[in-house]
């Protein structure tokens, strides 16, 4: 299939791996920022094929995982409100709140619906004028343009029964937070290709200059990821720190300017709490003053929210790259996809779920080869 098969070619993968092996002389730690990349690395078994010197650390780029518990509890309360149709991306439904998840709200009679696009939620709003339609607008810069467009359309078309519960987060402040965290081991980054297709990579030279770490914009297919790793390793071995674009078929320096203009119009930067990590200053977006009427947090008074995080869950350490999922004492025991303690075990992009579903439960050498 075009744009897929050619980026999953076994021979080319082996060639890139060979080059990485030839280049590397000592241990390096690379963080892939995006959960989609984590998923691809584990699903394709890329980590098994890399030389031992290259350690991949999984970053905080899973929007489901970092959405704060307080926001999830608020979402659950709104979804349980009579006369509300609560629309969400599918993988938010099983994320545990303090006491329950959206699936449980649904089975208790709440009208919770999975949609693929916030614009579909807008359609639901048009079809159900007597109901309040709330869309759970989460994600990084990748999902923000569609979310922003939905709110913009709602305002332009005066769709008053639509609102959005917004908990957007931003990549560059998260990279800085990782680099500034005590005991940080991360020496370089694969930047998230989809985020950069919206935002470009003009934001990164500042980080590279400040922290002297290579950042390579990277895609999601196996060959994309191997190429990103190859370029990072080359820079590290040479003692360089530059921004490179290894995903040129999707990403330009400037990114998608019309989308950025829309984002600047609909959202404003705010401090944001990241689940498991804590508050990162200026790391999120909320609806701007002009669009505040469409903010579900303003529209629905669900009282004060008291959130209780699991004491066993160490997803924060996982998201900062300080702990590998299987090193967590609760991994696969108290915490499984069936009974997730933290969001990293829920989302298909969550590092813990990726390890559980695809991970090295069986050592590769014990397997026979078909």
């Amino acid at each position, binding site marked *: 299939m075009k744009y897929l098969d050619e980026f999953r070619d076994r021979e080319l993968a082996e060639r890139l791996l060979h080059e990485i092996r030839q280049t590397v002389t000592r241990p390096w730690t690379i963080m892939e920022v995006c959960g989609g990349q984590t998923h691809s690395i584990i699903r394709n078994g890329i980590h098994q094929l890399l030389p031992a010197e290259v350690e991949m650390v999984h970053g905080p780029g899973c929007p489901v995982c970092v959405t704060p518990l307080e926001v999830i509890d608020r979402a659950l309360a709104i979804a349980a409100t009579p006369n509300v149709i609560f629309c969400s991306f599918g993988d938010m439904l099983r994320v545990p709140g303090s006491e329950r998840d959206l699936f449980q709200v649904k089975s208790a009679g709440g009208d919770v619906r999975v949609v693929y696009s916030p614009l579909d939620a807008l359609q639901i709003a048009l079809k159900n004028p007597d109901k309040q339609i709330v869309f759970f607008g989460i994600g990084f810069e990748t999902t923000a343009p569609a979310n922003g467009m939905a709110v913009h359309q709602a305002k332009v078309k005066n769709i008053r029964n639509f609102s959005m519960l917004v908990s957007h987060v931003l990549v560059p402040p998260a990279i800085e937070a990782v680099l500034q965290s005590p005991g940080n081991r991360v020496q370089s980054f694969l930047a998230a290709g989809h985020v950069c297709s919206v935002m470009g990579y003009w934001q990164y030279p500042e980080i590279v200059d400040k922290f002297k770490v290579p950042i390579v914009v990277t895609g999601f297919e196996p060959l994309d990821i191997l190429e990103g790793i190859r370029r990072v390793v080359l820079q590290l071995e040479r003692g360089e720190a530059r921004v490179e674009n290894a995903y040129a078929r999707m990403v330009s320096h400037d990114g998608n300017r019309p989308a950025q203009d829309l984002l600047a119009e609909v959202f404003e930067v705010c401090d944001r709490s990241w689940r498991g990590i804590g508050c990162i200053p200026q790391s999120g977006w909320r609806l701007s003053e002009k669009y505040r009427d469409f903010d579900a947090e303003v529209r629905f008074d669900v009282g004060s929210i008291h959130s209780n995080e699991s004491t066993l869950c160490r997803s924060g350490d996982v998201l900062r790259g300080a702990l590998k999922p299987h090193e967590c004492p609760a991994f696969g025991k108290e915490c499984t996809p069936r009974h997730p303690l933290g969001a990293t075990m829920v989302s298909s992009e969550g590092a813990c779920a990726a390890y559980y579903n695809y991970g090295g439960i069986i050592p590769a050498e*014990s397997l026979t080869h078909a």
Partner: protein
Amino acid sequence: MPDFSNWSCPLPLRDFPNVVMGHGGGGRLSSELIENIFVPAFSNATLTQLADSSVLDRPTGRIAMSTDSFVVRPLFFPGGCIGDLAVNGTVNDLAMSGARPLYLSAGFILEEGLPLSHLAQIVDSMAKAANAAGVTIVTGDTKVVERGHGDGCYINTSGVGIVPDGLSVAPSLVRPGDKIIVSGSIGDHGMAILSLREGLTFETTIRSDCAALHTLVESALAAAASNAIRAMRDPTRGGLAATLHEIAGASDVGIEIDESSLPVRGEVRSACELLGLDPLFVANEGKMIAFVAPEHADAVLAAMRRHPLGAEAVIIGRAVEEHPRSLVAKTAIGALRVVAPPLGEQLPRIC
């Protein structure tokens, strides 16, 4: 998709263009529904007697019996509808034990308000599917629930078939070394249904693969020595991965598959990539897998490929002694991954 405009309502049903509570009340409306919709479509000597139970002849052999309920939404989808799905689903469950399907029952739970033209279309497609599969619908039942208490129409079918003496096919009989054949492309049904769900609508040409597999099973069985086909399954809900897990568990073997050998249509792959789903976990309604003793695998594969429903059959992997009860896939770039059993429905990912 069906053309409801061509359906003409036989008297006296046209007084009620939609299902009403009375159609399930056991009175005249019930009788009219049976006489005007069900009996003409399923017409056979047993059913027209309208007795409380059907008395049937039994050829020699052991009896296989199976039941399945169908709650698909939407009721009509590209490649089929709930009617042929309900027939083929139970026919296939019987066939996977090596049985020749003979008789079906059909239980309907109708929601008040369902257009009778839709019901007639569903019943018509059931009749056609039953004829094509050579099974007789010998008994049935209809209940009506209030509007809002059902998705238009639910159907339960139970089936009886005959397993020839000496034949034993079961998930517990798989042994290490057995080859795994899949009869064709995976994920078609699930993606066809998903493409129509509210909020997920995407344009596609994907059609459900809904089909009766018992003649394909006959071809496969005829090509192999006695009991060389250890197990057969139709990977419906949970997809190929769920079925392989069940077999690994039942036989206490490990299973290895080569991901690059999996037959997946381009449109299905694209849709899965777009939505973040894995075709291994997506439902099928007209595909089977067979675990075959290695020395007979090529002969069975060739026989399946000569059948129209098995033209794209391939060997996708094998049972192994190592890692019992686990499913391991070789990835496109040559690494290995463990494929965990599905928990529930796959959740479309966010981006």
